[in-house]
């Protein structure tokens, strides 16, 4: 009745429903959403920059020591200035993208592999497997995220691989919980029953019927958590237990810049902006995905 005032039902009446695949739907919604499209472009540029960093600026400029070039403000020679060791900030920001992209993508991929497997197992099998997996996940929710990451990093020690593992180890629990409830709601559908009735095995049902239909919330979450992972890496490096000097991590650069906040503010400006723009791109894409795939999650996650 009153729904008419929203125009929603009317649109349903007018529009023809045609079958669209998940990825097509995602593309269609991204295409209409300008901020998300911009985010996508930034992400693609970022990945290219990370891959072709050596072609843009030589590595030495990012990690060497140039006593004559110390703390130069941004100018013609160093467009973003230099830091306290005379290293070119622009070079470090470019090379730093490698760290962020690697951590962001690999850590979430790692979390996805474990999380999807565990979530599917818990949601599909229920019973003991469900209880065990979910209680194990509960442990990860009991601690604040950053303290958990710190604890895992102290066990593993610093370094790129360990940052990836630490974030992945924390992420799996969130992904598993999300995927589990999604599997729960999908598997009661008639088409799953129908597949079972014609004799499809568990593996086939999971891969052909449940996975594609239960993925939506996980896709949204993953886009968001690539951003979270990049911030977490920066935070760990900032605290001194993530990437180690002279690695050009954006978080490390911010830690270095603290001593020069008033004398060389460009040292903190550019790496911070780099993190902000990168994470913002992922947030924009995640927002657009959520709006199109999972309207119920609006505002949440």
């Amino acid at each position, binding site marked *: 009745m*009153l729904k008419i*005032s*929203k125009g929603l039902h009317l649109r349903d009446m007018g529009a023809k429903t045609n079958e669209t695949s998940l990825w097509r739907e995602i593309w269609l919604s991204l295409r209409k959403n300008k901020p998300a499209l911009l985010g996508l472009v930034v992400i693609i540029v970022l990945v290219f920059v990370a891959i072709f960093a050596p072609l843009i600026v030589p590595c030495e400029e990012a990690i060497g020591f140039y006593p004559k070039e110390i703390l130069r403000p941004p100018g013609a020679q160093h467009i973003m200035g230099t830091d306290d060791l005379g290293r070119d900030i622009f070079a470090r920001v470019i090379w730093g993208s490698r760290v962020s992209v690697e951590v962001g993508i690999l850590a979430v991929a790692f979390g996805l592999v474990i999380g999807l497997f565990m979530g599917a197992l818990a949601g599909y099998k229920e019973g003991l497997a469900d209880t065990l997996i979910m209680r194990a996940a509960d*442990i990860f929710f*009991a*601690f*604040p*995220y*950053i*303290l958990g990451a*710190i*604890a895992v990093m*102290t*066990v593993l*020690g610093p370094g790129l691989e360990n940052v990836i593992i630490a974030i992945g180890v924390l992420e799996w629990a969130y992904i598993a919980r999300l995927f589990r409830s999604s599997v729960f709601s999908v598997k009661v559908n008639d088409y799953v029953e129908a597949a079972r009735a014609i004799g499809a095995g568990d593996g086939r049902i999971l891969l052909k019927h449940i996975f594609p239909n239960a993925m939506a919330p996980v896709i949204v979450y993953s886009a968001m958590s690539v*951003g979270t992972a990049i*911030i977490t890496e*920066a*935070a760990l490096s*900032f*605290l001194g*237990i993530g990437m180690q000097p002279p690695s050009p991590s954006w*978080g490390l650069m*911010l830690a270095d*810049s*603290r001593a020069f*906040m*008033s004398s060389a*503010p460009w040292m*903190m400006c550019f790496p*911070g902006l780099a*993190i*902000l723009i990168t*994470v*913002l791109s*992922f*947030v*924009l894409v995640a*927002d657009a995905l959520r709006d199109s795939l999972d309207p119920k999650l*609006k*505002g*949440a996650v």
Partner: protein
Amino acid sequence: MFRYIAKRLLQVVPVVIGVTLIIFLLMFILPGDPARMLVQKGASPEVLQVIREKYGLNQPWYVQYGKYMWNLLHGDFGTSIRFKRPVLDIIKDYYPNSIRLALVALIIEAVAGIASGIISAVKRHSFLDVLVTISTTILVAMPVFWFAMLLQVSFGLKWDILPISGMGDGSWRYYVLPAIALASVNTAFTARIMRSSMLEVIDCNYIWVARAKGLSERKIILKHALKNALIPVITILGLDLGTLIGSAILTETVFSWPGIGRVIYLAILQRDVPVVMGCTLILVFIFILLNLIVDVSYTYLDPRIRLGDRRAV
């Protein structure tokens, strides 16, 4: 009501056992010998041995764990290996700082988040809505430590109107910047959730009924819509207080705030098991307590929800 609360509090026991066990095991698999951290480099094995015996570090983990739990039962949180002080004293010294900062941050979060969420939902698609949407999206993507540094540079160094480090004499001026930094991301999330919750509610039939009753738009929003829209937001706020206390470590680092996050962080790095244990346990208690408060406050906000005991409410 009291039976319900008692039942909920009893559920703390297994959680405490689980949490302590995990921390204990985690600290045992950590590389590094706590005894070695207490002495200077090159100390003789005899000295190390004495220290291990003094702190019971040479016993198997389950004996140490049993002893720890026995003492905990008697209200003894043990002694810090690093600071050689009772852990309870450390807790008393640092937790109030963290809780006070978190409360100020929570007030900022609640007021700014709820207000901007309401405005942006009610004035949908307006300039203000766009402004709120853009700024919350940026804040969500902002690394909190960078935001904290920007606050320091602008308010502290450039305009020199607020202190940027430590607690000083404990006046409110020292709280402003750390609390804003700490609240930033949460405020953005609260505003977004408030907005979508409000948007959902103002499309409900009872809002149209209220309009048809001839109520003013102001009363409809502030009475009929707000109380319904607040229900999901209250959960977030309640649980956020725990996060604000426990994950303030980055803000504490930037502002040299003597809070518990930094204490736990240093204790982890220095393998100071009793401190990690004690402080984390308090944190877990706070989390559980907040959960309980949120659940009880629900029954006041949403009459459809009843606690375990019906008669009591």
